[in-house]
């Protein structure tokens, strides 16, 4: 149950109970156009009333809730390869290894972050989990059930429980649909045929994200970027999911709007007991927001750990470089940067062995061991919950990093990259 819940809420007694949500106390203040905060209870009541339609699914869900210790999501060997079609006969001439063998678990109630640069496969991975793109191989076990083999029809009730918030608030809302249809479409697909009931649910979810209830007849162009992202969040929440993939939910927003949306996500996580898979390239946002982090590089996970483990004690040379690359808004922490060579290799032709070996500063320092080129490192456990896919993870320390940084020259760094190109 959630902490923000009024203790004797009548919503608790409603026969088919979902976790009755109480909107965060001051969420609506975060938006200039938000309505005056309404009493918590009425919003919660309205909310529960709207979801009665899916009673059966909720029973299943309560059973799942009982198994708290089970991870909500377990991904094994997930791969997504895209064919490159070309040439005279339009045949497949190559493969993009967007996601290439990824294993991880997400515990119920935690926020699991995926971080990496563009092209590392983090978005594809997020979409494959929901089967918005069909994975090439691997299993996804969600709530104890393997969803990678389900048919589209079997998948429908599962989809209600896992939702996604998209990155681009301008591209992800159909400009020809009013808000009521944008949010209501999912409800309709889930069998909520009654228009009135649906509209009410739409209004409720708008209120939960701090927008006005009477916005339902408006179109996306009437909203600012931050408000659109709220609509995207409302759409995901309308179905009352347990698990939400947040695909770069704040990267398209200005800094001051970004914090509004982040606060909203934090409140919703608390109020609805949500589990997030948070995809981002912004390491400061991840550090603030998540519990555990997986660093991706070229379709594979390089390192997994808690935020503390990763940010204070990174054990993969790529993570170290990534962390060192973030510019910090604190001039006191002027650090000498560890600059990586060259660009990320193409995922259509990933390097052999360790995929990071072409840019790896540690390999260079260790005298270019052959092992990095010939043998692919597997994720291995270093300490409780901390895994790294580096043959020489034990050699990553503050001392080695500072030694490398001392001798680095930016211009040479870039020139050296051509040897491998």
């Amino acid at each position, binding site marked *: 149950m959630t902490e923000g819940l009024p203790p004797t809420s009548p919503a608790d007694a409603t026969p088919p109970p979902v976790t009755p949500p109480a909107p965060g106390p001051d969420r609506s203040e975060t938006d200039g156009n938000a309505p005056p905060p309404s009493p918590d209870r009425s919003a919660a009541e309205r909310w529960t009333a709207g979801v009665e339609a899916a009673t059966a699914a909720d029973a299943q869900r309560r059973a799942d809730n009982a198994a708290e210790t089970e991870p909500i999501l377990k991904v094994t060997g997930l791969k997504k390869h895209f064919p490159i079609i070309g040439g005279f006969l339009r045949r497949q001439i190559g493969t993009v290894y967007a996601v290439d063998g990824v294993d991880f678990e997400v515990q119920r109630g935690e926020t699991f972050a995926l971080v990496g640069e563009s092209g590392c496969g983090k978005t594809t991975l997020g979409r494959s989990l929901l089967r918005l793109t069909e994975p090439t191989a691997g299993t996804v076990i969600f709530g104890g059930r393997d969803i990678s083999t389900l048919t589209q029809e079997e998948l429908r009730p599962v989809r209600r429980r896992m939702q996604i918030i998209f990155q681009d608030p301008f591209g992800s809302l159909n400009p020809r649909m009013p808000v009521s249809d944008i949010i209501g479409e999912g409800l309709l697909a889930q069998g909520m045929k009654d228009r009135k009931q649906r509209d009410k649910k739409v209004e409720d979810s708008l209120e939960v994200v701090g927008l006005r209830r009477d916005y339902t007849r408006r179109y996306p162009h009437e909203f600012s970027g931050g408000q659109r992202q709220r609509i995207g969040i409302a759409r995901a929440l309308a179905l009352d999911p347990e698990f939400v993939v947040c695909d770069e939910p704040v990267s398209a927003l200005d*800094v*001051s709007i970004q*914090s509004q949306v982040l606060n909203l996500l934090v409140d919703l996580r608390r109020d609805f007991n949500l589990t997030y898979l948070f995809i981002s390239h912004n390491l400061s946002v991840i550090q603030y927001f998540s519990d555990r982090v997986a660093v991706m590089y070229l379709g594979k996970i390089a390192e997994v750990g808690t935020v503390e483990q990763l940010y204070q004690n990174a054990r993969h040379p790529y993570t170290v470089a990534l962390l060192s*690359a973030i510019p910090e808004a604190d001039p*006191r922490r002027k650090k000498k940067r560890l600059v990586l060579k060259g660009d990320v290799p193409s995922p259509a032709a990933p390097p052999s062995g360790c995929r990071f070996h072409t840019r790896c500063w540690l390999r260079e320092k260790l005298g270019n061991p052959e092992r990095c080129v010939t043998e692919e490192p597997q994720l291995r456990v270093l300490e409780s919950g901390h895994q790294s896919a580096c043959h020489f993870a034990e050699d990553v320390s503050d001392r080695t990093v500072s030694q490398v940084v001392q001798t680095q020259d930016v211009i040479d760094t*870039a020139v050296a990259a051509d040897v491998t190109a």
Partner: protein
Amino acid sequence: MTATSDRPVLGAAPSTDILLDVRNLRTVFHVMDGDVPAVDGVSFQLRPGRSIGIVGESGSGKSVTALTVMRLLDIPPAEVMPGSEIWFDGRELLRMPMNEMRKIRGNDIAMIFQEPLTSLNPVFTIGDQIAEQVALHLKVKQKEAWERAIESLKLVGIPSPERRAKQYPHEMSGGMRQRVMIAMALSCEPKLLIADEPTTALDVTIQAQILELLKSIQERTDSALMLITHDLGVIAEMVEDVVVMYAGQVVETGTVDQVLLEPRDPYTMGLIESIPTVDKRGGRLSVIKGTVPSPFNLPPACRFEPRCPYAWDLCRKTAPDLFETDHAGQHARCHLHTAAGVGRREQALEAHEQAMTVGRDLGGHG
């Protein structure tokens, strides 16, 4: 739009140790719905070899400021209002004939744009594009210009420049293209380099490469840098002085340490408070409520007043000037720093301090 006279009286030229002196710059866009005062009374100075950062959210007027300095805006719809002056190296740019401006542009002032793909011509090789500009500005032969192009590609760390110079923009990655843009900008050894969000479109490890490159090249060539960005992290690492813009106005100026560590304008304070950091983990991020005002409907007095947590009656009646703060050289556009703000100022600063460390009180992650 009160045209004072056809030939407004110019102020005196700045002293020679000021490279760029922007005075009361006002740029208005005349569009269908009315007039947009994109830049409204912006003034700042830049010394040779120094670096200045212009920060602001989208729509704050930071890019228009740069484009006005370069005189790259289409007039109309844009209009630079009378009374605006831009002094560069002892000459006034706004009243300069276009053919002379062209000699300065690219030669003495060069600009790097945000999107390296759209700012390069897709049908010419990058070598041709750099050589063209070198031949034009430095009046050298074609062959010499080509050699110079290769040299500048080498300078920005592009591997095998002879081969790369014969390639087209689409054959390069985003980071490489941005290097080409920098090479082009530097090929004529400008006195001032304007970089408009040079790394926004790039990944974080590539951004690190480009920023380090800009820094080392600026040191080597001793050119002045005007860096425009919304990223306070980039500002912290790259520049010495900062100008913060909001709704077309300068709201705070100072050294990078002053502005980022001890901000004095409520907008800057709010902006810095809203950045997620370790110290705030577990606590709520403070937010700047509402959104940037529409340029057609600006608040009557202080433009930040509707969103300001510290505003009072005075802020709705009188527009604040840039007042000197308790730090020498740091200015903020806020009544808190006048006699009327005594008492409130201390409260505001305390609230800011608290917002910066919300997570710490909770003992980290909650």
